[in-house]
């Protein structure tokens, strides 16, 4: 009952202090928003060539009417390379060098906005397209039974199709624009080839209409990068920002408890039947509820600005649980700091001094390669939390895979809470 009364007191105080509440909830959310926008919208604002990679696997074809080998794929690559912004000499694309094998890494590293795969039978399909175009144009005018005076055999409708595949990360705004432009260029190229094929026919049969649906043979397909689906750099940073938001909770807890000491309300409680355990567990309960709320807000903001995660609602629920456990760690650290600080001001400074560098140490903003330092930071629950969130949200890990991290967070949090309880009890709850 005492414990619940204390939890209720802290919650009421928190909810009624609108300014502080707003700040505490808004700050991590704004931080998330700023990061999200920075990642998603970076690079917008002025025209610039889109870095793309074109993998041309086209094996070419023999053109009967020209009696020559021809590679439409190479032709298309040159068109893509030379196309410019309207009324500008600025190229629309900058073609990167890379192999098919390297293309995935280039996409992941954002070296290119998309990868265009021109298939081996592209030229054959283009030829088929040209033939089909001519045949349909002529037969639409004179009928299938009449052989027009072409001076060469009537083209046969081709049976070859080819699919130009555009791979990329739909969560990355650069991809959205680049793939649309590539499709536009491809469409224009196809129309150009059709027009060229019809040129000879037009000489003898002026007024031959261009077929309505001439692109049967060339298809385009936009494909999300397998395995990473909709991931963006922001998606990889978002779990870190969530951990950062929860680390900021350390300051709030430390200040709140130190305030209770400074305003002497704790003295009133000390001489009552309340125990240190009642007080700290009650405050832990209220702060954990608050932390859970904060986690939900952080997720909400992240989702609203385009955060994509892997694994569906199960992963999201697991991530929320992980976030709540990490929030308890922050509360425990806040208690420890409040126990060490002499007053509210000192608690605030000390909490800032610890929480902000801690966010770097645990890898919120910096990704550490595996090694001794990364292993050492594993003793911190926030590091374990970050790893668990990344595994869950970015790689779709299931409970069993992140269980070691969750167990580590729980153990580390229990140790931290016990330490906080000991320090706070011995320094603040005993007779002075």
């Amino acid at each position, binding site marked *: 009952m005492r414990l619940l009364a204390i939890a209720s007191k802290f919650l009421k105080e928190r909810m009624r202090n609108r300014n502080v509440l707003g700040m505490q909830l808004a700050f991590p959310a704004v931080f998330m928003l700023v990061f999200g926008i920075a990642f998603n919208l970076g690079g917008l604002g002025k025209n610039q060539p889109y870095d793309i990679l074109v993998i041309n696997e086209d094996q070419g074809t023999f053109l009967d009417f020209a009696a020559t080998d021809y590679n439409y794929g190479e032709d298309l690559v040159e068109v893509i390379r030379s196309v410019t912004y309207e009324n500008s000499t600025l190229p629309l694309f900058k073609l990167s060098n890379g192999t098919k094998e390297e293309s995935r890494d280039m996409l992941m590293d954002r070296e290119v906005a998309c990868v265009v795969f021109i298939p081996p039978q592209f030229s054959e399909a283009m030829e088929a397209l040209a033939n089909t175009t001519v045949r349909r144009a002529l037969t639409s005018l004179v009928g299938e039974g009449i052989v027009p005076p072409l001076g060469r055999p009537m083209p046969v409708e081709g049976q070859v199709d080819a699919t130009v595949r555009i791979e990329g990360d739909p969560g990355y705004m650069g991809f959205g624009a680049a793939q649309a432009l590539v499709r536009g260029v491809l469409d224009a190229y196809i129309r150009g080839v059709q027009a060229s094929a019809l040129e000879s026919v037009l000489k003898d049969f002026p007024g031959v209409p261009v077929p309505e649906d001439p692109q049967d043979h060339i298809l385009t397909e936009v494909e999300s990068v397998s395995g990473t689906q909709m991931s963006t750099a922001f998606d990889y940073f978002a779990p870190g920002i969530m951990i950062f938001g929860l680390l900021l909770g350390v300051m709030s807890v430390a200040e709140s408890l130190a305030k209770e000491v400074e305003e002497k309300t704790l003295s*009133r409680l000390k001489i*009552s039947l309340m125990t240190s355990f009642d007080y700290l567990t009650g405050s832990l309960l209220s702060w954990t509820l608050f932390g859970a709320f904060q986690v939900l807000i952080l997720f909400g903001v992240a989702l609203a600005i385009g955060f994509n995660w892997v694994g569906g609602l199960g992963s999201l629920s697991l991530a929320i649980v992980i976030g709540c456990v990490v929030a308890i760690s922050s509360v425990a650290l806040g208690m420890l700091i409040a126990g060490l600080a002499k007053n509210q001001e000192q608690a605030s400074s000390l909490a800032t001094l610890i929480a902000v560098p801690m966010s770097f140490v645990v890898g919120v903003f910096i990704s550490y390669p595996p090694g001794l330092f990364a292993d050492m930071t594993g003793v911190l629950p926030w590091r374990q939390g970050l790893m668990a969130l990344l595994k869950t949200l970015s790689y779709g890990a299931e409970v069993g895979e992140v269980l070691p991290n969750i167990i580590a967070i729980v153990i580390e949090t229990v140790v931290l809470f016990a330490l906080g309880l000991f320090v706070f009890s011995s320094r603040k709850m005993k007779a002075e």
Partner: protein
Amino acid sequence: MSQADDAGAVAIELENLSKTFPGGVRAVDGLSLKVRRGELFGFLGPNGAGKTTSIRMMVGLLRPTSGKVTIEGQPIEKAPRELHAKIGVCPQDIVVWNLLTCRENLTMMGAMYDVPAGEAKKRADALLEAMQLTDKAGALANTLSGGMKRRLNVAMALVHDPDIVVLDEPTAGLDPQSRLVVTEYIDGLRKGKDKTIILTTHQMDIADQLSDRVAIIDHGKLLQLDTPESLKDRIGKGDVLDIALMDPSKNETAIATVKKVQGVREATQVEDKVEVRALDVASKIPEILRVLEAAGVRVSDLSLRRNTLEDVFITLTGRRLRE
């Protein structure tokens, strides 16, 4: 030792209690006293005399440098928690949770002493009514005036119905209306509920009016401990007896005559009256009238003003209480 000082009748006992703070400031210096069960014990002293430090040691908030505090015969540091529940403390500073309502502040304290929620609410409402805060029951404490907050501060010490109530300057800074509310409530606690009350105050009239016994301390030491009446009878310049003569031209004769009465400390002319000061002057009135009659001086009127604790304090410490 009187019978009243028997162990069973003593609520709190301080034995040679001392407290020296870091830096060498000795706030309390060998203080020994017993607070009897059911009495209202006044603790008087100027700022820095050691009252609050003594009280903080009494309730277990401050560890003494030496000496000991016993509550109902048990050392405070070893007293079971149940014994702590028998004490209610109203600190000198206003200590309330500003973002809780008045009722929530009280029920919160009730919960801390394991008072069942329903009972705590009943007591909270009764206390709010007694402190004339009923219409503010649902108001956040930070919206109250200073006087209201102080009344709430007092109520928070009482919600668990403690046997021993420690009130550290409960009326400091109160407006007359609030002060009356609080003093009447304290008086009611003593008379109606048989509580042991320890009251520190700057306000001599309140200590005089309410206290069964008064301890005067200064520089951490106990200077006097007795009933207010006894202190006023024993210490100070004494009571004031104003004598109006039938013939004011004989004032000089009257002054010279009265000064010869044993125990008279001072006799002066104030306007057209003779002002006589003596301890327990009431007991000396027959003798004064007799010598004046013998001197041929006839008295037309007499009025008596009692010695005050302020006078007692000034005599003991050489300074006023508020200095």
